[in-house]
């Protein structure tokens, strides 16, 4: 059995000798025995510590035992302390005890019979221990229940998000797919000779279709982890983005609120595509605009600051509208949470915002005060600066000279190089960082050797006959060769990797694009 937890037993008597004899009797019980010489001292102790049993002499100067008990009983904090009166007078008068909760009050006549005293005290001490344990268990149970409740709610939320994500992605894809024939037919119509009214119709349908296409795209974006959507440039210069989207965003605000913008020029780029960013800010501005209806000096402020270490950019959209309730603050990012009427709100705006920002490895924070306004802050990861981008493929880098006869191979190489922002040199007068050449009895290998010898850090790729293994590199004066030999039949995905690597080392060697 676990060692019992000792409880406090407080002895109150004005005569030290009596205290001592009580203490001796109770020592057997192995509890904490505390002695007090007066009611005052007893009270002081009770204020500091919980007591299981109070043994009190009825006859004391200043405040007698009954008065002390009265005081204790009116104080809820001491409600669990049992009181045992020690009285020289035989207490036949039950009236004295009537005011108390009888279960926890008792008396012992003098002379004290040690066995009786021990028995009574130990019963109360045990009772105290049991109730304490019960209370602890109860508290634990409540805590566990609350925890369970919370994780249940999280689970339901995650479940709902997953279901909605799948649903949204499926819907977005189907919608996108079906919009294709619509758009194609519209496109065919544009080439036809139409009456001006019909032309207007076509234009209107096209406009509606474009809207639906954006919607389909948002739906696909709402899915958190189904199809990976990297459909647009994943890096955005905020200043440039603002110049491009200002018209659209100002339109969302209309005339009844002012839109102020503070985006410093020299912020690092953020790791989020322009379309995503537009969608985020558009939704936030729209919400702010909705919130500002009927507010006299409505103002929306879009601002951005970079963190000192240039790792983050924080983008804020703030309004001085009516603010949000505690519940709205807590739940606003949930899909379908809305406080607006059916026509106005879908409850999807902020869920979408949250999805986009999360996908970009950022975070959304809401700060709102009733009557003061609301600020949505987005912490966005900044792009690494070009000077640190050592290991990455060069962007906007390099010139390659491509001398390939096999059309398909040439097409792949050109497509890959173009994808790496590498220019293709048209004639051999141009300074190339990389030579890509094909062996067909034309001395390609020695041309590649010449090229790498003339240009100390540059590389050459030589394609040769099929069936001799995917790639072979050979040593050149102990150095890893800068002539890379690849098989003509190399798979395009591997080719892309090899070209990327080779171009990167060539450009690094040149020093300009490290």
């Amino acid at each position: 059995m676990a060692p019992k937890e000792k409880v406090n037993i407080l002895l109150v008597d004005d005569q030290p000798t009596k205290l001592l004899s009580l203490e001796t009797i109770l020592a057997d019980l192995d509890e904490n025995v505390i002695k007090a010489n007066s009611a005052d001292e007893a009270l002081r102790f009770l204020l500091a510590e919980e007591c299981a049993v109070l043994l009190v002499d009825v006859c004391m100067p200043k405040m007698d035992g009954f008065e002390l008990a009265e005081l204790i009983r009116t104080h809820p904090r001491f409600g669990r302390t049992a009181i045992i009166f020690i009285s020289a007078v035989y207490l036949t008068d039950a009236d004295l005890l009537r005011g108390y909760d009888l279960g926890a009050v008792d008396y012992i006549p003098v002379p004290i019979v040690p066995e009786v005293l021990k028995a009574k005290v130990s019963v109360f001490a045990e009772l105290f221990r049991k109730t304490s344990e019960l209370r602890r268990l109860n508290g634990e149970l409540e805590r566990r229940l609350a925890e369970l409740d919370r994780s249940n709610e999280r689970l339901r939320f995650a479940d709902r998000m997953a279901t909605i994500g799948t649903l949204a992605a499926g819907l977005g894809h189907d919608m996108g797919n079906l919009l294709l024939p619509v758009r194609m037919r519209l496109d065919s119509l544009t080439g036809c000779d139409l009456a001006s009214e019909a032309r207007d119709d076509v234009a209107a349908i096209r406009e509606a279709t474009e809207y639906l296409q954006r919607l389909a795209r948002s739906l696909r974006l709402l899915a958190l982890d189904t199809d990976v959507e990297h459909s647009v440039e994943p890096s955005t210069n905020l200043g440039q983005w603002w110049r491009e989207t200002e018209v659209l965003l100002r339109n969302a605000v209309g005339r009844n609120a002012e839109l102020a913008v503070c985006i410093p020029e020299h912020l690092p780029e953020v790791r989020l595509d322009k379309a995503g960013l537009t969608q985020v800010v558009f939704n936030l501005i729209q919400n702010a605009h909705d919130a500002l209806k009927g507010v006299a000096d409505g103002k929306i402020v879009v601002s951005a600051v970079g963190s000192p270490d240039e790792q983050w950019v924080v983008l804020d959209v703030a309004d001085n509208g009516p603010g949000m309730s505690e519940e709205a603050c807590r739940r606003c990012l949930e899909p379908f949470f809305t406080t607006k009427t059916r026509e106005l709100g879908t409850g999807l705006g902020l869920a979408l915002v949250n999805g986009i920002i999360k996908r970009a490895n950022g975070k959304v924070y809401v700060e709102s005060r009733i009557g003061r306004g609301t600020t949505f802050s987005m912490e966005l990861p900044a792009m690494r600066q070009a000077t640190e981008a050592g290991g990455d493929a060069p962007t906007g880098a390099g010139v390659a000279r491509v001398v390939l006869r096999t059309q398909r191979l040439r097409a792949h190489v050109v497509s890959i190089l173009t994808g790496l922002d590498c220019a293709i040199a048209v004639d051999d007068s141009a300074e190339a960082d990389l030579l890509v050449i094909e062996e067909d009895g034309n001395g390609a290998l020695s041309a590649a050797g010449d090229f790498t010898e003339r240009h100390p850090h540059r590389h050459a790729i030589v394609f040769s006959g099929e069936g001799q293994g995917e790639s072979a590199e050979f040593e050149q004066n102990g150095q890893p060769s800068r002539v890379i030999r690849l098989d003509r039949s190399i798979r395009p995905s591997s080719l892309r990797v090899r070209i990327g690597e080779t171009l990167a080392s060539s450009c690094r060697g040149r020093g300009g694009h490290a």
Partner: protein
Amino acid sequence: MNQATNVDSNLDRHRRLRIVCIDDNAMIASALVRRLESDPTLTCVQVVQEGNASFQVVREASPDIVLMDVDMPGVDTFAIVERFASELPDVRVIMFSGHVNPEFIDRALDAGAWGYLSKNEDVVDLIEAIRRAGQGEIVLSKEAQTVQRSALPKRGP
């Protein structure tokens, strides 16, 4: 892009580019036919709505370009593309899809496709890409290009 040296002997520039469309969705297939036919430089010679039947049709029609939906129920479209590439090397297959992700693009190109286009692309760009594939280019729609770019393998310094 430099096309000056793209000598495509198979293709007479004054004849229409002959295209076979493979898509299980009838609405998409018929709209494709209509759009391709409305272009004086293109013609849609066949439409197939069932993946498994497509090989036979393509062999007989012997088109310049096959435009092939990636997601068709019950068929491994990448395997079909591989078969086209090995048995009918003069036919250029372009895969197109509403799903644009790096795995699909790599699988398509490795299987021998001449391009990967997104169904969400602007129609004009789509048509232009088909034409460029006809001239011997590997074509990736904007979405696909960005996907590839962001999926570049990470290398040490």
